[in-house]
């Protein structure tokens, strides 16, 4: 089932609310009118009852008793629709005014002093009964009945009118509610239209946040923030793709040229061998680059789940120093490890990150320099710093961890890596929930990895 539109919801809820209020109000009005008529009727009936009681009390002789019916008739003249019946203790009718049948319904009602209302066919009646004492000591029951058909008809008509008016009012409020909701939600529709117009090629567009109602403004802000992130990842992705294309083009074109030239004329086996060897080197470079790029792509897409073992960073560092020491010694560079730290994470990945940093430091350290690996840990986690002599131009610092970034274009031509090493370090640190920083001052360059106690 499709959920109702907001406009429909708001207008229906509004109409339902208004209908309930109108119903309550209508019931109150009808009840008040009814009540008002009852009061008038009670007043009239009680007045007549008092009159009958007086007449009966005055009749203290049989002669006087005989006079009572005539007096009653006189008293009732001019009171249309009012009738009086008197019944003795045995249930015999002693008096009844002319224009009314015996009010059986009233006598059936429980013997209480209160108004009784009943209907006979089209007509409605309201009556009151009470015992009256005659002057000679007998007790009769007096029943006074009022024809209230006209009241009843009035109330019925009034109720009908009320129902019609209320139905119309409910329909009208539903319509008005719909109109109000529709108008009120206009900014939302405007936003939807704008959002629908966005596409990958127009990711730089933003929803205008000014002039929106607060509820929608929050939504627009969140939406714009999402667009910012999307645009950023999109930009990085397309940059990466074009970098890949560019980086692959060079070795592939080298291979093509070399192969075509070699095939240009027949050569000695030694020459062919040379071509193949040179190709093998290019292929190896390509394979390595592809492997690195895959690793980065997987890290970006969160496809790499580092295991959570306790890694003795000092042991890893000294193992790596043993490996790179061979190269460092060759170049007259001193390697040293200071401090201890453990981290939670993937041993192989952390080792790789540290290896890349060390290799980078040795490559950029001047002969006779020192590369220091410092390990620290505190409550927040562990910190690994790799420091070497040699400065990095300040403008290069923010881009150091970008893919394919090598500050020195000449170094690239030398075939030492393609500038993915530090990007891999950053990816590894980030999948461990850590952070990497680089700074260069006073002729020293320092990379610092901050790893949390438990990887995110």
């Amino acid at each position: 089932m499709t959920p109702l539109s907001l406009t429909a919801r708001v207008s229906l809820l509004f109409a339902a609310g208004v209908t309930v209020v109108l119903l309550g109000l209508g019931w109150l009005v009808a009840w008040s009118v009814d009540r008002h008529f009852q009061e008038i009727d009670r007043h009239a009936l009680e007045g007549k009852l008092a009159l009958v009681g007086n007449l009966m009390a005055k009749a203290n002789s049989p002669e006087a008793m005989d006079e009572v019916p005539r007096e009653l008739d006189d008293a009732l003249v001019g009171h249309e629709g009012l009738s009086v019946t008197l019944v003795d203790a045995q249930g015999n009718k002693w008096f009844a005014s002319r224009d009314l049948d015996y009010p059986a319904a009233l006598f059936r009602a429980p013997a209480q002093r209160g108004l009784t209302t009943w209907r006979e066919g089209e007509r409605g009646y309201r009556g009151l009964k009470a015992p009256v004492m005659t002057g000679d000591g007998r007790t009769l029951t007096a029943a006074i009945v009022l024809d209230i058909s006209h009241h009843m008809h009035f109330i019925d008509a009034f109720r009908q009118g009320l129902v019609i008016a209320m139905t119309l009012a409910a329909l009208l409020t539903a319509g008005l509610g719909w109109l109000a909701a529709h108008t009120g939600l206009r900014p939302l529709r405007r936003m939807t239209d704008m959002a629908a117009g966005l596409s990958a090629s127009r990711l730089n567009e933003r929803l205008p946040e000014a002039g929106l109602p607060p509820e929608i403004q929050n939504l627009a802000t969140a939406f714009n923030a999402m667009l910012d992130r999307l645009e950023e990842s999109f930009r990085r992705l397309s940059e990466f793709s074009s970098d890949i294309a560019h980086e692959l083009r060079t070795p592939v074109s080298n291979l093509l040229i070399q192969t075509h030239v070699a095939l240009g004329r027949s050569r000695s086996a030694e020459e062919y061998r040379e071509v193949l060897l040179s190709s093998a080197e290019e292929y190896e470079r390509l394979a390595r680059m592809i492997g690195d790029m895959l690793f980065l792509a997987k890290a970006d897409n969160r496809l790499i789940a580092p295991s959570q073992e306790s890694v003795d960073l000092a042991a890893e560092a000294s193992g790596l120093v043993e490996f790179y020491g061979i190269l460092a010694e060759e170049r007259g560079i001193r390697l040293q490890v200071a401090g201890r730290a453990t981290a939670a994470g993937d041993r192989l990945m952390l080792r790789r990150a540290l290896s890349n940093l060390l290799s980078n430091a040795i490559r950029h350290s001047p002969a006779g320099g020192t590369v220091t690996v410092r390990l620290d840990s505190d409550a927040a986690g562990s910190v690994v710093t790799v420091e070497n002599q040699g400065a990095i131009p300040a403008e290069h610092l923010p881009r150091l961890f970008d893919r394919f970034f090598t500050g020195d274009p000449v170094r690239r031509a030398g075939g030492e890596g393609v500038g993915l090493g530090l990007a891999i370090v950053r990816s590894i640190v980030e999948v461990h929930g850590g952070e990497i920083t680089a700074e260069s001052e006073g002729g020293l360059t320092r990379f610092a990895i901050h790893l949390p106690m438990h990887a995110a």
Partner: protein
Amino acid sequence: MKILIVEDEPKTGDYLKQGLTEAGFVADLARDGWDGLELAKDGHYDLMILDVMLPGLDGWQVLDGVRRAGVETPVLFLTARDQVADRVKGLELGADDYLVKPFAFAELLARVRTLLRRGRGGLEPTVLKVADLELDLLRRRAIRAGKKIDLTAKEFALLELLLRRQGEVLPRSLIASLVWDMNFDSDTNVIDVAVRRLRAKIDEGFESRLIHTVRGMGYVLDMDRDGA
């Protein structure tokens, strides 16, 4: 030694077969999973090289079928996707090793030889010898032409690896992985320096050279070889 290659990519299959044949193995090539399974079940191979992505039956199904048939031939699988899940799956199904494409042929050859050696068993020798070079594994001593050579622990490990695999070209990445536990791309210049130093101790001052560089591939220890 008979090796079965199951690989659908035509060039890869052909070159694997040629390379292995030229390395002294008898190699058969199946180009899809069904053929591969049939051959594996009754071909009496010493080793299977199995591509994962195959038409018909995929590599996993072939491996499963082979193991169900009770054939315990060691299996090296080739995968283009370096997913941990893939590796785990392969090893759980009974594969013995894996390689991620693209790989160096020398690396494949080294793995193949390791797997074939593993099956042979037998007592490990305690002294490795080639020409006049002798490596005493128990006393951690290297002697060439009766002269003791001082080696660091890693140099000893490197020489031991070269000796155990004499005649095999060992790629730099394999050496880094086996000697220094560098199981990822690292600076291979380190290996060059390490081998150069080892060579200075082993070969310098002797008439025949034992450690050779194979350009574009790696290093090999061999008695007499055209050092390229």
